[in-house]
């Protein structure tokens, strides 16, 4: 009886105080002083903070981060009054030089964190059919294609993907003609109802990872 209790306690301790966290590994990047700001909202290793609504950025492509930071800096993104989170992000890019933007993109790309939890409901099977047109640019496994200017979608928070698809649909993002890639995406956003958006995002976040 006594042994059994000890065993159960041991098992409990193993379960509750187990895993070695990814963020502790010494080879992971430490942000330069001027980029600690990024981690305040986007979290340790830019793992994302759903409460602040700052999405996961870990491992994001250098070229895509640069382009988005330029979009914020130039007011192509984060200028529409309905873009609540974009408006919060915009001043963070506005004061960075091109060289700093290049540096921060390198940093973002080097960060690592676990894939984000699934937080939305949706029908992945229905989403699979809808994803066909997305795959043309973003790839069959949502791995992205730099040549087409289409970022990877895997690894992004589901709630963030939903918000961005809604923003493209509603003209909140991709409405500035100088933002050619954004305009392209807005034109390609044919999903109109919320259910379809949730279904396709569910499909994307359930794609296998390498």
């Amino acid at each position, binding site marked *: 009886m006594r042994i059994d209790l000890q065993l159960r306690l041991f098992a409990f301790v193993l379960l509750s105080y187990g895993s070695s966290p990814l963020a502790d590994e010494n080879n992971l990047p430490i942000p330069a002083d001027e980029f600690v700001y990024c981690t305040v909202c986007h979290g340790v290793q830019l793992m*994302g*903070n759903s409460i*602040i609504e700052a999405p996961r950025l870990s491992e994001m492509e250098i070229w895509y981060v640069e382009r988005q930071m330029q979009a914020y800096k130039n007011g192509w993104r984060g200028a529409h009054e309905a873009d609540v989170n974009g*408006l919060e992000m915009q001043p963070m890019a506005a004061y960075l030089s091109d060289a700093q933007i290049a540096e921060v993109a390198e940093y973002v790309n080097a960060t690592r964190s676990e894939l984000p939890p699934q937080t939305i409901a949706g029908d992945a099977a229905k989403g699979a059919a809808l994803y066909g047109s997305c795959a043309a640019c973003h790839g069959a496994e949502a791995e992205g294609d730099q040549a087409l200017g289409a970022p990877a979608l895997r690894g992004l928070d589901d709630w963030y993907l939903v918000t961005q698809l809604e923003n493209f649909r509603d003209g909140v993002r991709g409405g500035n003609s100088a933002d050619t890639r954004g305009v392209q995406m807005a034109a390609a956003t044919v999903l109109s109802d919320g259910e379809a958006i949730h279904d396709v995002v569910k499909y994307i976040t359930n794609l296998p990872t390498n």
Partner: protein
Amino acid sequence: MQDTGPVAMLDLQTVSSTNKKVAVLGAGIAGLTVAYELERAGYDVTVIEASKRIGGRTLTLRHGDVVDEMGYNRVCNFDDDPEMYFNAGPARLPGHHRRAMHYCKTLQVPLRIKANFSRSAYTHEEQHFGGKPVRIGRYVADARGFLSELLYKAVDKNAFDQPLSEEDKERMLKFATTYGDLHPNGIYKGTIRAGYRSGGFLKPAEHYAIMDFSALLKSRFWEQASVSSENQDWSEPLMDAIGGMDNIVKGFVRNIDSPILTNAQVQSIHNREDGIDIVYNYNGKREKISADWCFNSIPSHFMVAIPNNFAADYAAGLAALRHQNFFKIGLQMKERFWEREGIYGGITRTTQKINQIWYPSHGIHGKKGVVLGAYTFDPRVSTMFERMTPEKRISYAAACGDKIHPGYSSYIEAGVSIPWGRMNHMMGCGSHLSPQDHERYFKRLQNPEGRHYMIGDQISYHSSWQEGAFASAENALLDFDLRVRADSAVSGMG
């Protein structure tokens, strides 16, 4: 634990030779209190603070201080003068905040009386009284007069559910007459309590004509200001720390020898069976403290993005806490024009987005002064200010001030704005739980998770007050002490 009234001194068990390493996360009021107390009990304490300054939201801005707002890092441009400062966070202390009083006394932080309410300040409503400011004293006197007249008439007409005895009627009429300064026949015709329109010293005093009762009823002053000074936290007399509220922080720092690391950012928190590991970035390196105990005041909304191994219900409780985004503006005025209007301290209330104007209680009749030019609690209004550039916020507040004080904007020499929802390493203030979540999680969060204690004003019924932070630290330390005593009793028996 006694929650109100006299504070029982913490009587922490002095540490044994083992289990003595403590990590304190965050160097605000709660973290500093824990560090101060545990250092005295013999613990090996390290304070880890993410920002570059100590103090958390206890922030006093002076000449040359950095305003570390996300995207708008800038410097306070007040004169280099110790009297020119602005309490951007907590700014007042009521005497019933007994823990705050205890620490101010113990740390020898001098306090003084600060006027929070003034009958000479204004209530200003864009839609009423012709959009002109009205002295609060005049408003209050007329409002009481009208109410008292109604009460008088009700007594006269026996309009109560229970019949009043003749004696009680007499007493009630006398009460109404005195409370509202009514004429002997129970009619309110104005009172000198509303202020002197003329005379009163060498010539007979003349009082103001009474205001329109329906205008009084329509105004918003009822909701907001007429009873604000009757809420105990805002009731006279209030106090503040002479020279700035951050003198409380300095008092702690003077009395703490343990290392307080700044610019040190926590990366993970992991409970072990017999301790707790804290990984943090410091000086470009990843460091780890294997501590015996951890006291954590990191804003709860960051905890979802700091890897940890907390139990699901505890993590859910932390994630359920929501934060607000109070916003303040401080303006250095080149002349103390409000004194020429007979205003010394206190608060003007307005329906404009700036909400309040505070007049300084210190530096009376000096050349200059720092006025609070905006203090907003409404999240939508704060967000409106957040989206403006710092320069635009000041000009917006200046234009609002012009509607209350003629020439207000022409006196502004320098200004700072502090949007707490956009401050580095804060991104919010005023934590709260929905009623359902409060029921579900609050007690859980007041109690430890393994070797980890969550502290800060966020773990109290008094968020946004330093007393809430002090109380959370006391609550955690008392629980901690029970555990330490129980452990030492067991090992003593061994």
